[in-house]
């Protein structure tokens, strides 16, 4: 599903450059649920952004579902993001003037689906996250947990091969966090490949595999027994 070989990434900071990722090797198979752990500055978000084709790598190889991601035009990158990837962000990143249904339907719009089809599909996914009754509500009328579930529905709507979550529980209380994680586990059970960036130990334990980053290199990569939420 996902192959990364000897990945390097540095950012220019004025005259000096900051070497963030120093040779990352990571293979993720279909159906895995991986937690990427690390303290702030460890490069975990940068790694996720590169995997999500939101950022470009400096050197190394990145293959997503058999396609090498390299020197893409903006248009091609947008196409791949739309087709392969679903994003869940810490700050939800819903468009605040669109209601829940419209937010979920947005990636489908960029897939070129017809309006009716978009709404049907969006409604299906909104129903899946249990928010069918809230479809006409604007984001600021929803609780944090509800917002994140709308965001998950939006990420799922385009039926991506890989779900990327950047601190999905970072802005939520622990009860709501568990609710969201439980839902992500269910999705994983249905076969969805999921990558979660987190710095919370208990969240990482709910995944099937933990990759620990420190100072731009992978310190540890181990499969664990998943802490199931019921």
């Amino acid at each position, binding site marked *: 599903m996902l192959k990364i070989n000897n990945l390097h990434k540095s950012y220019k900071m004025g005259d000096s450059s900051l070497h963030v990722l120093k040779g990352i090797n990571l293979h993720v198979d279909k159906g895995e649920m991986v937690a990427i752990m690390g303290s702030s500055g460890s490069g975990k978000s940068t790694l996720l952004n590169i995997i999500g084709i939101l950022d470009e790598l400096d050197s190394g190889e990145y293959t997503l579902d058999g396609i090498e991601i390299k020197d893409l035009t903006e248009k091609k990158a947008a196409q791949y993001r739309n087709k392969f990837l679903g994003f869940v962000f810490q700050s939800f990143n819903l468009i605040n003037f669109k209601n829940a249904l419209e937010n979920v339907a947005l990636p489908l719009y960029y*897939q070129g689906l017809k309006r009716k089809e978009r709404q049907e599909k969006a409604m299906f996914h909104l129903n899946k996250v249990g928010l069918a009754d809230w479809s006409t509500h604007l984001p600021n009328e929803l609780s944090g947990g509800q917002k994140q579930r709308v965001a998950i529905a939006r990420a799922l709507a385009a039926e991506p091969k890989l779900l990327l979550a950047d601190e999905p529980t970072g802005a939520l209380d622990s009860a709501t966090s568990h609710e969201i994680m439980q839902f992500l586990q269910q999705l994983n059970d249905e076969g969805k490949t999921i990558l979660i960036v987190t710095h919370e130990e208990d969240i990482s334990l709910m995944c099937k595999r933990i990759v620990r980053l420190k100072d731009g290199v992978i310190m540890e990569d181990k499969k664990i027994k998943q802490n199931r939420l019921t």
Partner: protein
Amino acid sequence: MIDFGLFREVFQSLNKNKLRTLLSGFTVAFAIMLFTILFGIANGFQNTFNNEFAGDASNSIFINSGRTSKAVEGYQTGRRIQFDNALYKTLKEEFSDDIEFITGRVYKNVTASFGSEKSNYSVRAVNPDHQFIEKSEMVKGRFINPLDLKNNTKNIVIGNLVVEDLFGDINPIGKYLDLNKIKFKIVGVFVERTEGSDSNEARIIYMPISTAQKIYGNNDYIDQINLTYNQTLSEDQAIAFGNKIVDKIKDIFFVAKNDQSAVRARNRARENQEITQFNGVLAILVLIIGMGTLVAGVVGISNIMIFIVKERTKEIGIRKALGAPPNSIILIIILESIFITAIAGYVGLLVGGAVLNSFDLEDYWITDPGVSTSLVVAATITLVIAGTLAGYIPAKRAASIKPIVALRDE
């Protein structure tokens, strides 16, 4: 195939961000409104100026006689110069190439009575050409014709206000009007349509010049000679032509060339030249005003588009993360810009027009202020294009921001 989805996106964004839409719309509407008002006032000013000189044909020359002020060739000063039929004939023949219409005028004040109605009027005894020089429009019957002159008929043509004064609802054609105890047959009624002409013009009675000469003095005197020059003459040529005629008359009557009071001509070509110059200055002024307003509008819309794109950076980032191609980002922002400018421009036009219409500005030398629709449409299109360009540059930049940077924007 029209992408309705795109339009829906644009309308939703405009509709859900009312304050933003309103503010940017206001800038454009205000610019177009100012443009309309300023242009309209300038046009109104121009109209007033033109009207001041309307009423007669714009290529007319009126020639009057007076007393000599300079002694010449043994003649003393104070000699009265009297135009006559011979002069009329000489001018008509000698300058036939350059003269379009020519008429003599004999003035006479009369008391006219019809039945029990009675009033005082000015009579102008004229040649048939007079109709075209004064731009009298016949509403009933005909004007004085060559046959009237030949036979010294007692036919007259009266202004519509004379009809109002004396006849009321009675059709005056064929009726006899009593002028100083002599009966004249009414053969025509005219109106003065030209704006700016006073009501006195519509209270004139015209009669054949030959008739007046015979009845009122039994001579061949003419008080004034009016003519129009050929429209093909340039203003400079027309002024030269006017001078030539005056010189000719001075020759005939032995008047010194530098005598200003014996023969006087009022040449519209001179006035036209002044009007042309004045209009030229006004046009430049209007152009500067218009351009200034438009530039202000363009700067305004540019500012707003930059602000809008800045404000929407995060939204753009989200859209890009969800797979929006760069072109769709550019298109959505530009379309918004076009919609705002087009609609706000139209509103500005309406408001500007309403403002112009709601004030009575005749007292301030402004007549019929208004702007041609094509001009305002052109101005609005300019703003739309400017809005598009102004939207395009930041939109292009926004579309090329890495989504990761855009998403980080708070």
